[in-house]
């Protein structure tokens, strides 16, 4: 199976990268741009075949390594 982990800064935490991207999009002439947030996505091939177990494993990986839960939140999808 494949776990897709998306890691974003928690709401309220300054996202300088998102801010800079939003600004650059404006400069490029795109209009109607609101808030931009930038995050990470990590795709992990897993030998696990049980979706629930894969989900649990990926969540543990996220808590332990992939996300810095002091400032980031994460989301796991299994595909």
């Amino acid at each position, binding site marked *: 199976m494949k776990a897709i982990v998306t890691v974003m800064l928690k709401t309220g935490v300054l996202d*300088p*990268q998102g801010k*800079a*991207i939003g600004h*650059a999009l404006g400069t*490029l002439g795109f209009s109607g741009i609101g808030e931009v947030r930038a995050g990470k996505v990590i795709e992990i091939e897993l030998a696990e075949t049980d979706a629930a177990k894969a989900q649990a494993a990926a969540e543990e990986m996220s808590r332990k390594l992939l996300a810095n839960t002091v400032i980031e939140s994460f989301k796991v999808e299994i595909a």
Partner: protein
Amino acid sequence: MAFRAGIVLFPGTNRERDIAIALAAANGGREPVIIWHKDTTLPPLDLVVLPGGFSHGDYLRCGAMAAQSPVMRAVRDFASAGGHVLGVCNGFQILTEAGLLPGALLRNAGLRFLAQDHHIRVESTDTIYSRGYVQGQSIRVILAHGDGNYAADEETLDRLEGEGRVVFRYSRRDGTVAPDANPNGSARAIAGICSENRRVLGLMPHPEDAVEALIGGEDGKPMFAGLAEALAA
């Protein structure tokens, strides 16, 4: 005769003084003009320099936002009219992002910022930037980058090699190229390449920080001396 150099200042550029000092020293004390990233035209120039730094904070991808700035349109026109453009470090990243040089610069293979002296071998002396050196010479320069891992598809790499456009390669002190002397994982140990017409050059190391015996050594000096000689002629 002095030549006319211009340095483009992007928000976050931080090695503009270093390169200005190196250029002025090679150019009879003449200070380069500063060009603002929002400018849409360039003054008459013999050389445009995109200096090192963290343009736009290196956010998203190094050089990506700077490559889209208004001034880059003018720089592209300048280059296609045969102008000389030098991109150092972040400047090299901007040149690849702007499509003025092929390939891309990825995160260093070791995933850490690298700030240390390293040797590079001069592979081609057929540019104004490298004519001051001897082919095969190894020079000591400083690296200061997090994203210097040069990548391009095999076809592009072969073409660059075939056309003699690999100008600098990471090497040991004695000039041998080896995996243990490739600090950032660059394809074929590439440290610097030039355009087809050999007038646009991008390189990751900082020759501008090696123009004085007291500070960083003098191995960068021939670059500036050489281009002064070529451009002032």
